[in-house]
């Protein structure tokens, strides 16, 4: 089962890198969203996949009965999902504002912070 997930992770990463290398902010945003999901899937796979029962101890026992799924990666992913979603939301708004301010969604054409022909420092004293 891990092998299948590994391929899925690879495909996710490839797609997100392809999108992130674009100059269009909207494509980069999609790349960021996929990158977050690829990473979460990676952590999930790294935590070993088992078809076990949920990690819940029955009330009468003091230990789980059989093999259980590893709860830690799931807790980590839950945190990472929340964080990456909030970042995605922020970047989405930022992209919208950048489009309003600069009139572009092409990052190469957005040169307000680093103008193409910035003046050189004065030569000589």
């Amino acid at each position, binding site marked *: 089962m891990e092998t299948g997930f590994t391929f899925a992770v690879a495909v996710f990463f490839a797609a997100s890198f392809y999108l*992130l290398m674009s100059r269009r*902010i909207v494509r*980069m945003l999609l790349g*960021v969203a996929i*990158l*977050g999901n690829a*990473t979460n899937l*990676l*952590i999930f*796979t*790294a*935590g*070993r996949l088992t078809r076990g029962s949920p990690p819940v101890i029955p009330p*009468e*026992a*003091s*230990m789980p009965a059989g093999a259980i799924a590893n709860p*830690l*990666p799931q807790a*980590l992913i839950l*945190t*990472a999902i929340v*964080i*990456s979603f*909030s*970042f995605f939301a*922020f*970047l989405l708004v*930022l*992209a919208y*504002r*950048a489009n309003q*301010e*600069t009139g572009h969604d092409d*990052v190469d054409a*957005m*040169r*307000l*912070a*680093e103008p193409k022909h*910035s*003046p*050189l*420092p*004065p030569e000589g*004293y």
Partner: protein
Amino acid sequence: MALGAGEAVDLAKAMNLAATPLRDWLVIVPVVLPIVAGAVCVMLRNAWRLQPIIAIAVLILVAAADATLLARTLAEGPVVMVMGRWLPPFGIAFTVDALGALFALVAALVTLAGALNGIVDIGEKRRRFGFYPFLLLMSAGVSGSFLTGDLFNLYVWFEVLLIASFGLLVLGGEPRQVDGTVKYGFLNLIATTLFLIAIGYLYGLVGTLNMADIALKVRALPEGAPIATIAALFVVAFGMKAAAFPVNAWLPASYHTPKITVAAVFAGLLTKVGAYALLRVLVMLMPAERVVLADLIAVVAALTMLTGALFALAQAEIRRALGFLVISGIGYIFAGLAIGGTAGLSGATFYAVHSMLAMSAAYLAVGAVERYAGTSMLGEVGGLWRAMPLFAALFLVVSFAIAGLPPFSGFWPKAMLVSAALDGEWPWLAAAMLGAGFLSTLALGRIWLIAFWKPAPAGFTPHGAAGASVPAATLAGLGGLTLLVVVIGLAPEPLAALARRAAAGLIDPAAYLNAVFPGGR
């Protein structure tokens, strides 16, 4: 071994059953206080005059807590506090050693200087939109990164400081800022995601995220485990965070766009968090891989410091030149990491502390120039030496410190690093450090000559809002940082001894491990 129904489980093995002693709560004070104060400041957004008072008071308390923590770690060794009563490696253990406490203390001082400068630099509108809450939250994120003992928790603190820094960077929403934030946001998000990827692989390999536990398990790994790959991923991720040479494009794109107070705090803190994380992970967790990667890190270090200084020479705007000097400084920390050993690592620690103080002070000083002249373009300002002599003297001290001239704080770590490089097998790295020092001296010397020493160009009229007087709040922040730069320069030995302690703690983490696992593991 399965227990039957009703049999008692020995919880003492996994849980902390006694209450945490009151003095151990000190460990989380630098994180909790700014978060609470940040929330209070959000609620008080209409009482915008009150916000700086709260922020400054809280940051003074945080600095005091960090100082107490540092004193305690020096006296008793690392201090641990476990969260949610679960003992390590199950629960999150905040673990403070000399390195973390030292960095946290300096970070609190830099943030305090920023909060002071904010009184005059940040107007009503930006305060209403949350300058002080963002600053406090960023301070919490930075403190958390320095104090945590859990790798995933480190990621969370990275994200806390990152989202707060997004807020600070875009505050005001000028077109230039929005543009800078787009680049900063995307590239930093990719860096933290790379960090998370490395964490995922490391978890798959060793099955734990507690730093002390990782340190033990990595040393016990069988030959051929793919740990070097993971170490390389960490180097890329933290190198990006620290703005090391090939992956630093986000810094010059964004650092000159926000209000100067924000830039000053960023220059002091953000890149150093990446450098700290790299020191922690590579030296303490993966010492063998640091040796493997040392050559690569040395090349990156040399290129970072040389390109940083060269680009600084090519800038016409003083702010942008300073951004490249921040990058150049990161090269020295990486050089110390590559050299390794107590000599190299203590040099890197010392340099990081110096760079936090001096770079923030430099940005605050440029803020005062802009306040007076209305611009920081070289060739448009001049004669500042006559207009504001006291301030000009402060700027000269800070420039000397950044360029690494004695008797100010930059000289000693550079001397330590060059001597460590010559003692080791790194003569070319020593040459690169001296060359980069020369280039940054040129860059700063030119700023000084043209903006301060040379008479004002014809037709120069200061069109800043205020006269030549530097406001008291700026002087307090700038003067405080400059005072530290001078004191460290004149009496470097206490900080050097502290840096050696911190480096020794990284190289031989026995005390750290004992503090996390008192009963052995």
